[in-house]
Protein backbone atom coordinates (compact mmCIF):
# COMPACT_ATOMS: atom_id res chain seq x y z
CA UNK A 1 0.00 0.00 0.00
CA UNK A 2 1.41 3.39 -0.99
CA UNK A 3 1.24 6.01 1.69
CA UNK A 4 1.40 8.67 -1.02
CA UNK A 5 -0.89 7.71 -3.88
CA UNK A 6 0.08 10.80 -5.84
CA UNK A 7 3.44 12.52 -5.79
CA UNK A 8 4.19 15.72 -7.64
CA UNK A 9 7.77 16.91 -7.78
CA UNK A 10 9.02 20.26 -9.07
CA UNK A 11 6.11 20.64 -11.45
CA UNK A 12 6.42 23.67 -13.69
CA UNK A 13 4.36 24.95 -16.59
CA UNK A 14 5.48 27.88 -18.66
CA UNK A 15 3.62 29.51 -21.54
CA UNK A 16 6.41 31.42 -23.25
CA UNK A 17 7.47 33.92 -20.56
CA UNK A 18 4.46 33.38 -18.30
CA UNK A 19 4.96 30.88 -15.51
CA UNK A 20 1.54 29.39 -14.73
CA UNK A 21 2.80 26.76 -12.31
CA UNK A 22 6.10 27.40 -10.64
CA UNK A 23 8.07 24.43 -9.36
CA UNK A 24 5.41 22.98 -7.08
CA UNK A 25 5.77 19.75 -5.14
CA UNK A 26 3.11 18.03 -3.10
CA UNK A 27 1.58 14.68 -2.41
CA UNK A 28 -1.83 13.16 -1.92
CA UNK A 29 -1.98 10.51 0.75
CA UNK A 30 -3.95 7.29 0.83
CA UNK A 31 -7.62 7.97 1.69
CA UNK A 32 -6.96 11.67 2.12
CA UNK A 33 -9.13 14.56 1.00
CA UNK A 34 -6.84 17.35 -0.13
CA UNK A 35 -8.19 20.78 -0.99
CA UNK A 36 -6.50 22.87 -3.66
CA UNK A 37 -7.42 26.50 -3.13
CA UNK A 38 -6.39 29.66 -4.82
CA UNK A 39 -7.75 32.79 -6.43
CA UNK A 40 -8.73 32.74 -10.10
CA UNK A 41 -5.70 32.43 -12.34
CA UNK A 42 -3.55 31.01 -9.54
CA UNK A 43 -2.71 27.85 -11.49
CA UNK A 44 -5.23 25.33 -10.10
CA UNK A 45 -6.74 24.32 -13.44
CA UNK A 46 -3.32 24.13 -15.09
CA UNK A 47 -2.15 21.86 -12.28
CA UNK A 48 -5.22 19.62 -12.59
CA UNK A 49 -4.78 19.40 -16.37
CA UNK A 50 -1.22 18.26 -15.89
CA UNK A 51 -2.26 15.74 -13.24
CA UNK A 52 -4.65 14.20 -15.78
CA UNK A 53 -2.16 14.25 -18.65
CA UNK A 54 -4.32 16.73 -20.52
CA UNK A 55 -1.39 19.12 -20.55
CA UNK A 56 2.32 18.41 -20.84
CA UNK A 57 4.38 19.95 -18.03
CA UNK A 58 7.40 22.04 -18.91
CA UNK A 59 9.32 20.18 -16.24
CA UNK A 60 8.78 18.06 -13.16
CA UNK A 61 7.31 14.64 -12.50
CA UNK A 62 3.89 13.29 -11.61
CA UNK A 63 3.61 9.78 -10.25
CA UNK A 64 0.60 7.83 -9.10
CA UNK A 65 1.01 4.71 -6.94
CA UNK A 66 4.77 5.04 -7.44
CA UNK A 67 4.50 4.99 -11.25
CA UNK A 68 5.32 7.81 -13.63
CA UNK A 69 2.19 9.21 -15.30
CA UNK A 70 3.79 9.67 -18.71
CA UNK A 71 5.13 6.14 -18.85
CA UNK A 72 2.11 4.35 -17.32
CA UNK A 73 -0.71 6.65 -18.39
CA UNK A 74 -3.33 4.04 -19.36
CA UNK A 75 -2.64 1.84 -16.35
CA UNK A 76 -2.88 4.81 -13.96
CA UNK A 77 -5.99 6.37 -15.49
CA UNK A 78 -7.93 3.13 -14.96
CA UNK A 79 -7.82 3.99 -11.26
CA UNK A 80 -8.27 7.74 -11.50
CA UNK A 81 -11.27 9.84 -12.48
CA UNK A 82 -12.27 13.44 -12.76
CA UNK A 83 -15.30 15.67 -12.64
CA UNK A 84 -15.67 19.36 -13.21
CA UNK A 85 -18.59 21.69 -13.61
CA UNK A 86 -16.75 23.25 -16.55
CA UNK A 87 -16.99 20.21 -18.77
CA UNK A 88 -20.00 18.69 -20.43
CA UNK A 89 -21.18 15.42 -21.89
CA UNK A 90 -22.64 14.45 -25.28
CA UNK A 91 -25.56 16.78 -25.59
CA UNK A 92 -28.16 14.52 -27.17
CA UNK A 93 -27.24 11.24 -25.48
CA UNK A 94 -29.36 9.75 -22.75
CA UNK A 95 -27.99 9.40 -19.25
CA UNK A 96 -27.73 5.65 -19.69
CA UNK A 97 -25.93 5.90 -23.03
CA UNK A 98 -23.37 8.31 -21.59
CA UNK A 99 -22.64 6.11 -18.62
CA UNK A 100 -22.57 2.99 -20.79
CA UNK A 101 -19.89 4.52 -23.04
CA UNK A 102 -17.69 5.59 -20.15
CA UNK A 103 -18.16 2.29 -18.35
CA UNK A 104 -16.91 0.59 -21.52
CA UNK A 105 -13.95 2.95 -21.81
CA UNK A 106 -12.99 2.15 -18.22
CA UNK A 107 -13.74 -1.54 -18.78
CA UNK A 108 -16.02 -1.60 -15.75
CA UNK A 109 -17.16 -5.14 -14.98
CA UNK A 110 -20.92 -5.71 -14.78
CA UNK A 111 -21.40 -2.15 -15.96
CA UNK A 112 -25.21 -1.94 -15.92
CA UNK A 113 -25.26 -2.99 -12.28
CA UNK A 114 -22.63 -0.39 -11.41
CA UNK A 115 -24.51 2.30 -13.34
CA UNK A 116 -27.77 1.44 -11.57
CA UNK A 117 -26.11 1.58 -8.14
CA UNK A 118 -24.49 4.97 -8.75
CA UNK A 119 -27.61 6.49 -10.32
CA UNK A 120 -29.43 5.51 -7.15
CA UNK A 121 -26.68 6.93 -4.92
CA UNK A 122 -26.83 10.27 -6.74
CA UNK A 123 -30.64 10.13 -6.87
CA UNK A 124 -30.91 10.44 -10.63
CA UNK A 125 -32.06 6.90 -11.45
CA UNK A 126 -35.37 8.28 -12.71
CA UNK A 127 -33.45 10.24 -15.40
CA UNK A 128 -31.88 7.21 -17.01
CA UNK A 129 -33.62 7.68 -20.35
CA UNK A 130 -33.52 11.45 -20.39
CA UNK A 131 -31.18 13.27 -22.79
CA UNK A 132 -28.34 15.29 -21.34
CA UNK A 133 -29.52 18.63 -22.70
CA UNK A 134 -32.84 18.19 -20.89
CA UNK A 135 -31.21 17.91 -17.47
CA UNK A 136 -31.04 20.79 -15.01
CA UNK A 137 -27.63 22.17 -13.96
CA UNK A 138 -27.79 20.22 -10.71
CA UNK A 139 -28.74 16.99 -12.48
CA UNK A 140 -25.85 17.44 -14.92
CA UNK A 141 -23.42 17.90 -12.04
CA UNK A 142 -24.72 14.71 -10.43
CA UNK A 143 -24.38 12.86 -13.73
CA UNK A 144 -20.77 14.04 -14.06
CA UNK A 145 -20.12 12.78 -10.55
CA UNK A 146 -21.75 9.46 -11.43
CA UNK A 147 -19.42 9.21 -14.40
CA UNK A 148 -16.48 10.05 -12.15
CA UNK A 149 -17.22 7.15 -9.79
CA UNK A 150 -17.96 4.54 -12.48
CA UNK A 151 -14.54 2.92 -12.46
CA UNK A 152 -14.23 2.49 -8.66
CA UNK A 153 -11.50 5.17 -8.69
CA UNK A 154 -8.73 5.05 -6.13
CA UNK A 155 -8.10 8.72 -6.75
CA UNK A 156 -10.64 11.28 -7.82
CA UNK A 157 -9.98 14.84 -8.89
CA UNK A 158 -12.95 17.13 -8.44
CA UNK A 159 -13.13 20.66 -9.73
CA UNK A 160 -15.92 22.52 -7.95
CA UNK A 161 -17.90 19.32 -7.30
CA UNK A 162 -20.97 20.85 -5.69
CA UNK A 163 -21.33 24.19 -7.42
CA UNK A 164 -24.73 24.61 -9.08
CA UNK A 165 -26.29 22.11 -6.68
CA UNK A 166 -29.13 22.86 -4.30
CA UNK A 167 -27.84 23.00 -0.71
CA UNK A 168 -29.60 19.77 0.33
CA UNK A 169 -28.18 17.88 -2.65
CA UNK A 170 -24.72 19.38 -2.02
CA UNK A 171 -24.86 18.07 1.56
CA UNK A 172 -25.72 14.58 0.28
CA UNK A 173 -22.92 14.70 -2.29
CA UNK A 174 -20.44 15.68 0.40
CA UNK A 175 -21.67 12.81 2.56
CA UNK A 176 -21.27 10.44 -0.37
CA UNK A 177 -17.70 11.61 -0.97
CA UNK A 178 -16.81 11.19 2.69
CA UNK A 179 -18.43 7.74 2.69
CA UNK A 180 -16.43 6.70 -0.38
CA UNK A 181 -13.28 7.86 1.35
CA UNK A 182 -14.12 6.08 4.60
CA UNK A 183 -15.38 2.83 3.08
CA UNK A 184 -13.25 2.45 -0.02
CA UNK A 185 -10.21 4.56 0.89
CA UNK A 186 -10.67 6.82 -2.11
CA UNK A 187 -8.23 9.72 -2.15
CA UNK A 188 -9.72 13.01 -3.27
CA UNK A 189 -8.14 16.16 -4.62
CA UNK A 190 -10.71 18.90 -4.82
CA UNK A 191 -10.94 22.52 -5.70
CA UNK A 192 -13.83 24.58 -4.42
CA UNK A 193 -14.75 28.15 -3.76
CA UNK A 194 -17.06 27.02 -1.00
CA UNK A 195 -14.80 27.37 2.03
CA UNK A 196 -17.31 25.78 4.39
CA UNK A 197 -17.25 22.72 2.13
CA UNK A 198 -13.46 22.63 2.09
CA UNK A 199 -13.32 23.03 5.86
CA UNK A 200 -15.85 20.24 6.31
CA UNK A 201 -14.34 17.78 3.86
CA UNK A 202 -10.62 18.31 3.61
CA UNK A 203 -8.02 16.70 5.80
CA UNK A 204 -5.45 19.05 4.36
CA UNK A 205 -5.53 22.21 2.33
CA UNK A 206 -2.99 23.65 -0.05
CA UNK A 207 -3.17 27.24 -1.21
CA UNK A 208 -1.72 28.06 -4.59
CA UNK A 209 -1.03 31.64 -5.60
CA UNK A 210 0.69 32.92 -8.72
CA UNK A 211 1.66 29.35 -9.56
CA UNK A 212 3.30 28.60 -6.21
CA UNK A 213 2.09 26.73 -3.18
CA UNK A 214 2.16 29.40 -0.53
CA UNK A 215 0.84 27.42 2.38
CA UNK A 216 -0.32 23.94 3.22
CA UNK A 217 -1.83 22.41 6.33
CA UNK A 218 -5.01 21.22 7.97
CA UNK A 219 -7.94 23.67 7.80
CA UNK A 220 -7.69 24.14 11.57
CA UNK A 221 -3.96 24.84 11.56
CA UNK A 222 -4.37 27.36 8.76
CA UNK A 223 -7.19 29.27 10.43
CA UNK A 224 -5.18 29.36 13.65
CA UNK A 225 -2.55 31.41 11.84
CA UNK A 226 -5.05 34.27 11.87
CA UNK A 227 -5.54 35.67 15.35
CA UNK A 228 -7.91 38.45 14.34
CA UNK A 229 -11.46 37.86 15.60
CA UNK A 230 -14.60 39.74 14.86
CA UNK A 231 -16.43 41.06 17.92
CA UNK A 232 -20.04 42.12 17.44
CA UNK A 233 -21.94 43.78 20.24
CA UNK A 234 -24.94 46.00 20.89
CA UNK A 235 -24.09 49.16 22.77
CA UNK A 236 -26.90 51.24 24.27
CA UNK A 237 -25.27 54.59 23.76
CA UNK A 238 -24.15 54.40 20.16
CA UNK A 239 -23.10 58.07 19.96
CA UNK A 240 -20.90 57.87 23.03
CA UNK A 241 -19.46 54.54 21.88
CA UNK A 242 -18.63 55.90 18.43
CA UNK A 243 -16.86 58.91 19.92
CA UNK A 244 -14.93 56.68 22.27
CA UNK A 245 -13.79 54.30 19.51
CA UNK A 246 -12.75 57.23 17.34
CA UNK A 247 -10.76 58.77 20.18
CA UNK A 248 -8.97 55.45 20.72
CA UNK A 249 -8.50 54.99 16.94
CA UNK A 250 -10.37 51.70 17.02
CA UNK A 251 -11.80 50.78 13.59
CA UNK A 252 -15.41 49.73 13.66
CA UNK A 253 -18.52 49.22 11.56
CA UNK A 254 -21.90 50.24 12.89
CA UNK A 255 -25.43 49.22 12.03
CA UNK A 256 -27.92 51.05 14.28
CA UNK A 257 -26.57 50.22 17.72
CA UNK A 258 -24.68 47.07 16.67
CA UNK A 259 -20.94 47.48 16.42
CA UNK A 260 -18.51 45.21 14.60
CA UNK A 261 -14.88 45.47 15.58
CA UNK A 262 -11.95 43.37 14.44
CA UNK A 263 -9.21 42.68 16.94
CA UNK A 264 -6.64 40.19 18.05
CA UNK A 265 -8.21 37.39 20.07
CA UNK A 266 -5.83 38.09 22.98
CA UNK A 267 -7.01 41.69 23.27
CA UNK A 268 -10.73 40.97 23.69
CA UNK A 269 -10.64 40.87 27.50
CA UNK A 270 -8.71 44.15 27.60
CA UNK A 271 -11.22 45.72 25.18
CA UNK A 272 -14.22 44.67 27.27
CA UNK A 273 -12.57 46.03 30.41
CA UNK A 274 -12.02 49.33 28.59
CA UNK A 275 -15.71 49.51 27.67
CA UNK A 276 -16.68 48.87 31.27
CA UNK A 277 -14.33 51.59 32.56
CA UNK A 278 -15.94 54.05 30.14
CA UNK A 279 -19.41 53.09 31.34
CA UNK A 280 -20.39 51.59 27.97
CA UNK A 281 -22.72 48.71 28.58
CA UNK A 282 -23.40 46.05 26.00
CA UNK A 283 -26.57 43.99 25.83
CA UNK A 284 -25.49 41.24 23.49
CA UNK A 285 -22.06 40.13 22.35
CA UNK A 286 -20.87 37.62 19.73
CA UNK A 287 -17.28 36.68 19.02
CA UNK A 288 -16.52 35.19 15.61
CA UNK A 289 -13.31 33.23 15.37
CA UNK A 290 -11.59 33.22 11.98
CA UNK A 291 -12.51 30.47 9.55
CA UNK A 292 -10.95 29.18 6.35
CA UNK A 293 -12.66 31.89 4.34
CA UNK A 294 -10.93 34.56 6.45
CA UNK A 295 -7.67 32.76 5.92
CA UNK A 296 -8.25 32.53 2.18
CA UNK A 297 -9.17 36.21 2.00
CA UNK A 298 -6.04 37.14 3.93
CA UNK A 299 -3.94 35.23 1.39
CA UNK A 300 -5.70 36.91 -1.54
CA UNK A 301 -5.30 40.28 0.17
CA UNK A 302 -1.57 39.70 0.58
CA UNK A 303 -1.46 39.10 -3.15
CA UNK A 304 -3.28 42.32 -3.90
CA UNK A 305 -1.08 44.25 -1.47
Amino acid at each position, binding site marked *: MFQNVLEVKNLTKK*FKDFVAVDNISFDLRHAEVLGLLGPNGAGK*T*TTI*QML*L*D*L*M*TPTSGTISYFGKDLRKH*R*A*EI*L*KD*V*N*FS*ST*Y*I*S*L*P*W*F*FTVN*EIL*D*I*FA*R*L*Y*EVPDRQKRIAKLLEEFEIDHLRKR*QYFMLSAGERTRLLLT*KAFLNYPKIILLDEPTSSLDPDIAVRIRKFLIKERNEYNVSVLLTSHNMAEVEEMCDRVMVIKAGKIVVSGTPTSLTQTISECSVELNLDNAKKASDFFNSKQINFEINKSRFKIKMDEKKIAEFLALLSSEGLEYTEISIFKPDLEDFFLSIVKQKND
Partner: protein
Amino acid sequence: MVIRYTYNLKHSLDRLSDMFYWPLLDLLIWGVTGLYLAKLSTHSSNYLFIILNGLIFWIIVWRAQHEININILSEIWDKNIVNIFVTPLNIYEWILSFMIFGFLKSLVSVVFSALIAYLLYGFNILVYGPALILFFISLMLTGWAFGFIVAGFLIRFGERIQTLAWGGIAIIIPFSALYYPLSILPHWAQLVARFIPSSYVFEALREMLFTKQLAFDKLGISFGINILYLIADIWFFVFMFNKAKKIGIGRLI
Protein backbone atom coordinates in the same frame (compact mmCIF):
# COMPACT_ATOMS: atom_id res chain seq x y z
CA MET B 1 -15.50 4.76 -29.14
CA VAL B 2 -17.11 3.15 -32.19
CA ILE B 3 -20.23 2.62 -30.07
CA ARG B 4 -20.04 6.25 -28.93
CA TYR B 5 -20.03 7.45 -32.55
CA THR B 6 -22.77 4.99 -33.47
CA TYR B 7 -24.97 6.57 -30.79
CA ASN B 8 -24.49 9.85 -32.69
CA LEU B 9 -26.41 8.33 -35.60
CA LYS B 10 -29.34 7.61 -33.32
CA HIS B 11 -29.55 11.16 -32.02
CA SER B 12 -28.51 13.27 -34.98
CA LEU B 13 -30.51 13.42 -38.17
CA ASP B 14 -27.52 15.17 -39.74
CA ARG B 15 -25.27 12.23 -39.12
CA LEU B 16 -27.83 9.73 -40.32
CA SER B 17 -28.97 11.65 -43.38
CA ASP B 18 -25.45 12.23 -44.70
CA MET B 19 -25.25 8.50 -45.34
CA PHE B 20 -28.37 8.42 -47.48
CA TYR B 21 -29.86 11.81 -48.29
CA TRP B 22 -26.94 13.51 -50.04
CA PRO B 23 -25.83 10.43 -52.00
CA LEU B 24 -29.43 9.96 -53.13
CA LEU B 25 -29.76 13.59 -54.18
CA ASP B 26 -26.42 13.49 -56.04
CA LEU B 27 -27.40 10.33 -57.84
CA LEU B 28 -30.77 11.76 -58.85
CA ILE B 29 -29.41 15.08 -60.14
CA TRP B 30 -26.22 13.87 -61.78
CA GLY B 31 -27.75 10.60 -62.91
CA VAL B 32 -30.42 12.46 -64.84
CA THR B 33 -27.76 14.83 -66.19
CA GLY B 34 -25.81 11.77 -67.30
CA LEU B 35 -28.89 10.37 -69.01
CA TYR B 36 -29.33 13.62 -70.91
CA LEU B 37 -25.66 13.66 -71.97
CA ALA B 38 -26.01 10.03 -73.03
CA LYS B 39 -28.91 11.01 -75.27
CA LEU B 40 -26.74 13.64 -76.94
CA SER B 41 -23.96 11.17 -77.50
CA THR B 42 -23.58 8.20 -79.77
CA HIS B 43 -21.68 6.40 -77.03
CA SER B 44 -24.95 6.12 -75.14
CA SER B 45 -24.51 5.15 -71.53
CA ASN B 46 -20.76 5.85 -71.21
CA TYR B 47 -21.30 9.41 -69.98
CA LEU B 48 -23.84 8.22 -67.47
CA PHE B 49 -21.63 5.43 -66.18
CA ILE B 50 -18.61 7.71 -65.86
CA ILE B 51 -20.63 10.14 -63.76
CA LEU B 52 -22.19 7.43 -61.60
CA ASN B 53 -18.80 5.79 -61.19
CA GLY B 54 -17.29 9.06 -59.98
CA LEU B 55 -20.19 9.80 -57.66
CA ILE B 56 -20.32 6.42 -55.98
CA PHE B 57 -16.60 5.90 -55.51
CA TRP B 58 -15.98 9.43 -54.28
CA ILE B 59 -18.38 8.67 -51.41
CA ILE B 60 -15.72 6.33 -50.01
CA VAL B 61 -13.05 9.06 -49.87
CA TRP B 62 -15.48 11.66 -48.59
CA ARG B 63 -16.98 9.48 -45.85
CA ALA B 64 -13.62 8.18 -44.61
CA GLN B 65 -12.27 11.73 -44.32
CA HIS B 66 -15.45 13.32 -43.02
CA GLU B 67 -16.04 10.78 -40.25
CA ILE B 68 -12.61 11.42 -38.75
CA ASN B 69 -13.11 15.16 -38.73
CA ILE B 70 -16.75 15.34 -37.75
CA ASN B 71 -16.24 12.95 -34.85
CA ILE B 72 -13.36 15.02 -33.50
CA LEU B 73 -15.55 18.10 -33.84
CA SER B 74 -18.44 16.36 -32.09
CA GLU B 75 -16.20 15.86 -29.03
CA ILE B 76 -15.28 19.53 -29.13
CA TRP B 77 -18.88 20.69 -29.65
CA ASP B 78 -20.07 18.45 -26.80
CA LYS B 79 -17.24 19.70 -24.53
CA ASN B 80 -16.54 16.02 -24.01
CA ILE B 81 -12.93 15.79 -25.14
CA VAL B 82 -11.60 16.15 -21.60
CA ASN B 83 -13.83 13.30 -20.42
CA ILE B 84 -12.49 11.13 -23.22
CA PHE B 85 -8.86 11.83 -22.46
CA VAL B 86 -9.06 11.29 -18.73
CA THR B 87 -10.00 7.67 -19.50
CA PRO B 88 -7.28 5.12 -20.31
CA LEU B 89 -8.06 5.55 -24.02
CA ASN B 90 -4.91 6.34 -25.96
CA ILE B 91 -4.52 8.34 -29.14
CA TYR B 92 -3.99 5.27 -31.33
CA GLU B 93 -7.20 3.64 -30.09
CA TRP B 94 -8.99 6.88 -30.88
CA ILE B 95 -7.48 6.89 -34.38
CA LEU B 96 -8.54 3.28 -34.88
CA SER B 97 -12.10 4.05 -33.82
CA PHE B 98 -12.33 6.79 -36.47
CA MET B 99 -11.06 4.39 -39.10
CA ILE B 100 -13.44 1.59 -38.15
CA PHE B 101 -16.43 3.88 -37.90
CA GLY B 102 -15.54 5.61 -41.19
CA PHE B 103 -15.19 2.24 -42.88
CA LEU B 104 -18.60 1.05 -41.65
CA LYS B 105 -20.34 4.26 -42.64
CA SER B 106 -18.67 4.28 -46.05
CA LEU B 107 -19.71 0.71 -46.64
CA VAL B 108 -23.35 1.41 -45.82
CA SER B 109 -23.36 4.59 -47.89
CA VAL B 110 -21.71 2.96 -50.91
CA VAL B 111 -23.98 -0.09 -50.82
CA PHE B 112 -27.01 2.19 -50.64
CA SER B 113 -25.76 4.38 -53.50
CA ALA B 114 -24.85 1.37 -55.63
CA LEU B 115 -28.30 -0.03 -55.11
CA ILE B 116 -29.93 3.25 -56.17
CA ALA B 117 -27.65 3.48 -59.21
CA TYR B 118 -28.59 -0.05 -60.20
CA LEU B 119 -32.32 0.43 -59.66
CA LEU B 120 -32.55 3.81 -61.38
CA TYR B 121 -29.93 3.59 -64.10
CA GLY B 122 -28.96 -0.06 -64.42
CA PHE B 123 -25.37 0.70 -63.38
CA ASN B 124 -23.96 -2.29 -61.51
CA ILE B 125 -20.73 -1.69 -59.58
CA LEU B 126 -20.30 -5.44 -59.26
CA VAL B 127 -18.96 -5.34 -62.84
CA TYR B 128 -15.61 -4.68 -61.20
CA GLY B 129 -15.70 -8.09 -59.56
CA PRO B 130 -13.19 -8.78 -56.77
CA ALA B 131 -11.19 -5.70 -57.85
CA LEU B 132 -13.98 -3.67 -56.27
CA ILE B 133 -12.50 -4.52 -52.87
CA LEU B 134 -9.09 -3.18 -53.91
CA PHE B 135 -10.62 0.05 -55.26
CA PHE B 136 -12.62 0.42 -52.07
CA ILE B 137 -9.60 -0.09 -49.83
CA SER B 138 -7.38 2.28 -51.79
CA LEU B 139 -9.98 5.07 -51.75
CA MET B 140 -10.59 4.44 -48.05
CA LEU B 141 -6.87 4.91 -47.40
CA THR B 142 -6.95 8.20 -49.32
CA GLY B 143 -9.90 9.42 -47.23
CA TRP B 144 -8.21 8.43 -43.97
CA ALA B 145 -4.89 10.00 -44.99
CA PHE B 146 -6.43 13.37 -45.87
CA GLY B 147 -8.77 13.11 -42.88
CA PHE B 148 -5.86 12.92 -40.48
CA ILE B 149 -4.21 16.02 -41.96
CA VAL B 150 -7.38 18.02 -41.31
CA ALA B 151 -7.76 16.29 -37.92
CA GLY B 152 -4.29 17.49 -36.95
CA PHE B 153 -5.31 21.09 -37.57
CA LEU B 154 -8.65 20.62 -35.79
CA ILE B 155 -7.09 19.18 -32.65
CA ARG B 156 -4.55 21.98 -32.55
CA PHE B 157 -6.76 24.95 -33.47
CA GLY B 158 -10.24 23.75 -32.49
CA GLU B 159 -13.57 24.69 -33.99
CA ARG B 160 -12.45 28.03 -35.40
CA ILE B 161 -11.15 26.14 -38.43
CA GLN B 162 -13.98 23.60 -38.53
CA THR B 163 -14.87 24.51 -42.08
CA LEU B 164 -11.93 22.32 -43.14
CA ALA B 165 -13.93 19.28 -42.02
CA TRP B 166 -16.37 19.91 -44.89
CA GLY B 167 -14.22 21.60 -47.48
CA GLY B 168 -10.68 20.37 -46.84
CA ILE B 169 -10.81 17.28 -49.00
CA ALA B 170 -12.44 19.18 -51.88
CA ILE B 171 -9.02 20.47 -52.85
CA ILE B 172 -8.08 17.08 -54.28
CA ILE B 173 -11.28 16.60 -56.31
CA PRO B 174 -10.07 18.44 -59.44
CA PHE B 175 -6.86 16.40 -59.42
CA SER B 176 -8.58 13.09 -58.71
CA ALA B 177 -10.19 13.10 -62.18
CA LEU B 178 -13.48 11.67 -60.99
CA TYR B 179 -15.44 12.40 -64.18
CA TYR B 180 -12.74 12.93 -66.80
CA PRO B 181 -9.42 11.39 -67.82
CA LEU B 182 -6.24 12.90 -66.43
CA SER B 183 -5.11 13.74 -69.93
CA ILE B 184 -7.79 16.44 -70.10
CA LEU B 185 -6.12 18.37 -67.27
CA PRO B 186 -3.48 21.03 -68.00
CA HIS B 187 0.08 19.84 -67.68
CA TRP B 188 0.72 21.40 -64.28
CA ALA B 189 -2.47 19.81 -62.91
CA GLN B 190 -1.40 16.43 -64.25
CA LEU B 191 1.84 16.84 -62.34
CA VAL B 192 -0.08 17.56 -59.14
CA ALA B 193 -2.40 14.61 -59.82
CA ARG B 194 0.60 12.29 -59.79
CA PHE B 195 0.79 12.87 -56.06
CA ILE B 196 -2.93 12.30 -55.49
CA PRO B 197 -3.54 8.57 -54.99
CA SER B 198 -7.25 8.73 -55.86
CA SER B 199 -6.37 9.93 -59.39
CA TYR B 200 -4.80 6.53 -60.15
CA VAL B 201 -7.86 4.72 -58.78
CA PHE B 202 -10.34 6.70 -60.88
CA GLU B 203 -8.20 6.19 -63.96
CA ALA B 204 -8.08 2.48 -63.23
CA LEU B 205 -11.85 2.38 -62.61
CA ARG B 206 -12.63 3.96 -65.97
CA GLU B 207 -10.13 1.75 -67.71
CA MET B 208 -11.70 -1.36 -66.23
CA LEU B 209 -15.20 -0.13 -66.98
CA PHE B 210 -14.46 0.13 -70.68
CA THR B 211 -11.71 -2.43 -71.29
CA LYS B 212 -12.46 -4.96 -68.52
CA GLN B 213 -8.72 -4.87 -67.73
CA LEU B 214 -7.52 -4.16 -64.25
CA ALA B 215 -4.66 -1.63 -64.27
CA PHE B 216 -2.54 -3.23 -61.58
CA ASP B 217 0.20 -0.65 -62.09
CA LYS B 218 -2.11 2.26 -61.35
CA LEU B 219 -3.67 0.48 -58.39
CA GLY B 220 -0.22 -0.44 -57.08
CA ILE B 221 0.97 3.17 -57.25
CA SER B 222 -2.19 4.37 -55.48
CA PHE B 223 -1.64 1.85 -52.66
CA GLY B 224 2.02 2.84 -52.35
CA ILE B 225 1.30 6.57 -52.14
CA ASN B 226 -1.68 5.97 -49.83
CA ILE B 227 0.30 3.95 -47.35
CA LEU B 228 3.07 6.54 -47.29
CA TYR B 229 0.56 9.36 -46.83
CA LEU B 230 -1.39 7.52 -44.16
CA ILE B 231 1.70 6.82 -42.08
CA ALA B 232 2.90 10.41 -42.47
CA ASP B 233 -0.54 11.88 -41.73
CA ILE B 234 -1.15 9.76 -38.64
CA TRP B 235 2.28 10.88 -37.46
CA PHE B 236 1.24 14.49 -38.18
CA PHE B 237 -2.02 14.05 -36.26
CA VAL B 238 -0.21 12.59 -33.22
CA PHE B 239 2.37 15.39 -33.48
CA MET B 240 -0.38 18.04 -33.50
CA PHE B 241 -2.18 16.26 -30.64
CA ASN B 242 1.01 16.47 -28.58
CA LYS B 243 1.37 20.13 -29.58
CA ALA B 244 -2.21 20.67 -28.38
CA LYS B 245 -1.31 19.01 -25.08
CA LYS B 246 1.45 21.56 -24.58
CA ILE B 247 -1.19 24.26 -24.23
CA GLY B 248 -3.75 21.89 -22.75
CA ILE B 249 -6.56 19.80 -24.19
CA GLY B 250 -8.89 21.54 -21.76
CA ARG B 251 -8.78 24.73 -23.80
CA LEU B 252 -10.75 22.98 -26.55
CA ILE B 253 -13.88 23.04 -24.36
